[in-house]
C-alpha cells in the first residue's frame, strides 16, 4: 500500500518518492535547488546523535536538513501492512 507521509516521519532505512514540497519562499526554493523536487527518490540514512537534523540520500549525494524543513516535504512510501 502506498502512503503519503512527511519526510520527517520516515524511519531510518525508509525510502520513497517525493510528491510535493509545501511551504513558500526561500526555503522551498532552496530545497528545489538542492534537488528536493517531486519525482526524486529519497532514502533516510540517519539522524544526528541528538535526533535532529536528518541525513538523506537523494540524486546520488548526501543532504542534511532539519526536521522542521523535512516536514515540508511529502513523500510517497510503500508500506507493508502489519
Amino acid at each position: 500500500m502506498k502512503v503519503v507521509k512527511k519526510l520527517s516521519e520516515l524511519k531510518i532505512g525508509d525510502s520513497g518518492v517525493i510528491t510535493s514540497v509545501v511551504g513558500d519562499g526561500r526555503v522551498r526554493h532552496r530545497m528545489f535547488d538542492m534537488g528536493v523536487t517531486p519525482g526524486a527518490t529519497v532514502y533516510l540514512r540517519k539522524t544526528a546523535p541528538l535526533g535532529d537534523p536528518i541525513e538523506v540520500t537523494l540524486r546520488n549525494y548526501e543532504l542534511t536538513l532539519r526536521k522542521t524543513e523535512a516536514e515540508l516535504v511529502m513523500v510517497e512510501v510503500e508500506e507493508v501492512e502489519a
Partner: protein
Amino acid sequence: MKRFALAGNPNSGKTTLFNALTGATEYVGNWPGVTVERKIGTYKKLSEPVEIVDLPGIYSLSPYTPEEVIARNFIIDETPDAVINIVDATNLERNLYLTTQILEMKVPVVIALNVYDEVIKNGDEIDTDQLSKELGVPVVKISAIKETGLKELMETALAESLKGREARTIIDVKKINELIESLEDEFEVKGVSNPLFHAVKLAENDEIEVENHKDLIEIVEKAKDKLDDKTFGNDIEAIIADSRYKFISNKCSVCYKKSSNVEVTAGDHFDQRLTKSDKIDKVLTNKWAGIPIFLAILFVIFHVTFSANFLFFGKFIGFSEEAADATLGIFFTPDGINSPGVMLQTALIAFTDWLTELLHQLFEVMGAGSFISGLIVDGIFAGLFSILSFLPQILLLFLFFAILEDSGYMARVAFILDRIFRKFGLSGRAFMPMIMGFGCSVPAMINTRTLADDKERTATIRVIPFFSCGAKLPILVGVAGGIVTLLGWNGADGIVFGIYVFGMCMAIVAALLMRNTSMRGEVPPFIMELPAYHKPSFKALMIHLWDKTKHFVKKAFTVIIASTILIWLLSHLSFKFQYLEDEEITSSMLAYVGRGLLWLFTPLGFGYQANLDGWGFVFVVGAVSGLIAKENVITTFSTLATAINAVNSSIVIDEALGEEVAPVVAMIQATGIHVSGLLAYIAFNLLTIPCFAAVATAKAELPKGQIWKTVLFWLGFSYVTAAAVYVCFEWWWTSFIVVALIVGCVFAIHYYNKRHPLDAPKVKEA
C-alpha cells in the same frame, strides 16, 4: 587580457582547479560590498595570458546566499569572455542543475568534467560527446588534483570565447516556454542585457527580479491563472525546477554508463554499495560515539597547538629550571615538553627578543636619544613582535581546521551539533568559529565565512572574544593568583577554569540577547550537502596557509602598528610633550586620562574605591594597553609596579609569586582593591573590546558599518556585566536585585517581541 570565470558547486574541486591553473599568481581581495573572498589569478600557458576569476562555490543562481548573488552579478555585469563550469563527474545530476542556469546567460561556456579518473576507477564511463551535444557546449575531461586535461580545457575555452554563444534554455514545458518568450520580448524592449536569463528568473518568482521589474509581474500572474499542470497546478517554480531535473535525468544522466551496463534511470539510482566515505561516516557520526570523537579531536588540536606539557610527559619526567632556561627552553619547560605550537612560538619569540636586543644596541651605538629608541624598539617593534608571536599558533590552528574543512568533517560537525545551537538562535556551523576563539579570535572570525546568514555571522563574530583566547590567559592567571594571595587560600586553577566557563555562558547569553533584539530573525534554515570524505590536497593546504599569513602580516603592518604607536606615545609623553621613561608612566597622558576616567569605573569596583594613594588609574591604564595585545595588561602592571615601588618602597614585587602574579599583588597592595573589584576587572577584560588585531579582523568580516555598533556592544556588554559582578560580590544581597533586573529584561523583551512579531514568511499549503 581575456577573462574567464570559474563556476561550480561547492566541493566540486573548484579551488583545486583554480590553484592548478593559476599557481602562485593569485591575489585575494573581497567582492564589492561583501566579505566573500574574490580570488583572481593568471593562466600563462596559452598564446596569450588569461585572467581567471574564481567565483564562489554555488548550487544555483537564485539569490539564496550572498555567494549566489555575487556569481550571478559577475556573469551579467562584468561579462567574462567565457565561463568554465566545473562539474563533478561522480555527481552529474546535482552539478548540472547549475549548468542549466548558466546556459541561460549569453556567455560562452565550457564544461570541465572533474574527477573523471574516479569514474574510470569504478569501471564506469561517461559519453562526453553525447553530453556535449545535449548541452550544446564543449565538455572536457580533467582531473584538477592530477592536473590533467587542463591545457585542453583552456584551449577549448579560448576557442569558445572567440566564437561566442547565444543564451538557451532547456526548460521544455509549452506554456512556461510561452511565458518566458513573452517576458524575454519585454526585457528586450527595455534594453536589458541577458533577457532570457531575467525572463526565466522572473518566471521563477526570483526575489531580485520581482523587486526590479514590478511592472512585468502582471504577465507572470496572468500566465499562472491559465496554468493547470497535472502534478504542480500553477506552481511555476516547481514546474521549472522539475523541468531542469527532467532534462538532466533524461538527456544527461544517460550519458553515464555504469560498468554493469545497467543504465541509470531517472531519479532512481541508489548505489547501495558502501563506499569508503560511508564507512568513515558510520563511525564519525555514530549515535553514541559521534560527540565524544568530536570532543577528542578538538582536544588533540588544542593540545598540539597550545600545550606547554605535550603528551603530559611533565608528569613522568622532571626538567630542571636551569636546563629549561638554556636554549633548550624552546623544547621544554619545567612543566614538561612543549607542543609543536608552543615550540614554534617560543622559537619565534627568542628570535624577536634577539632582534630587539640588537636594535637596542644599534641605537645605543648610534647615540640616538631614548625617545627615538624607545618609540621604535619598545613602541613599534615590541607591539609588532607580540602580535607576530601568535602567528605560529594561529597558522597551526588554521592548518588543522583547514584539514577538517577540506576533508569534509566540518560539515559533519555542523550536522552533529546543530540541535544544540539552534536553541541559541544559531546553526551548527557557528560552533567551529566559536571554539577556535579559545585559541585566537583572528582565525575564528575569519572562519565565520562558512555561515550563510548575515545576522548569525554578526552575532557569532561579536561573541567570539568571549571565548578566552591564549593572550588573555596571563590576565586570568595573574589576577586569579592575586585573589588567592589576598584571601590566603589555594585554588587559582579553579578560578581560571571558572572564568573560562563564565566566558562561554556569557557568549550564550549575548547570542540569545542579540537574536532576540537587534539581530532578530528566523533561525537560519539548515539545508546542507554532506560531501564525501576525501584526503585534503597538500598543495591546497599550503596555498591556504600562505594566504592567511599574507592577510595577517598585512594587517599587523597597518592598523596594528598605527594603534601601537598611539598607545605608546600616550604612555610615554606628558602633556608638555616631554618624553618619559617607563618608570615615569605615572605622569603620562595615559595616566592623566586614566585618572580622569576613574569615576567611570567606580561602578565596576576599580575606580575611586581602589584609589589608595592615587594609584587607582593603574587598572584603567592596564585595560587600555590591553587593546594592543591582551598580554600587555600584565606587562603594564609590571612596569607600573616598578614605578610604584620607586615611589613607595613598602610595596615590593615578590618575584617568588611568579611573573604574572607578583605585579598583581603589588597592585592590590598599592590600590587597596577588593576581591569583587578584581573579579569585575577580569570580567571586563574578558568581554570588552578585544585586541586591535581582532578588531581589525572583525571590521573586515562584518557587513559594512557594523564595526562601530560591534565595538559599542563590546564596551556596553562588558561594562554592564562587570558592574553586575562587582556589586554582587561586594554586597551579596544585591544579587537579588540583579536577578530581578535580568528577569524583568527577559520578560520585557519577550513581551515586546510578542507584540511586534517578525514578518513571518507566508506559508502556502499545497
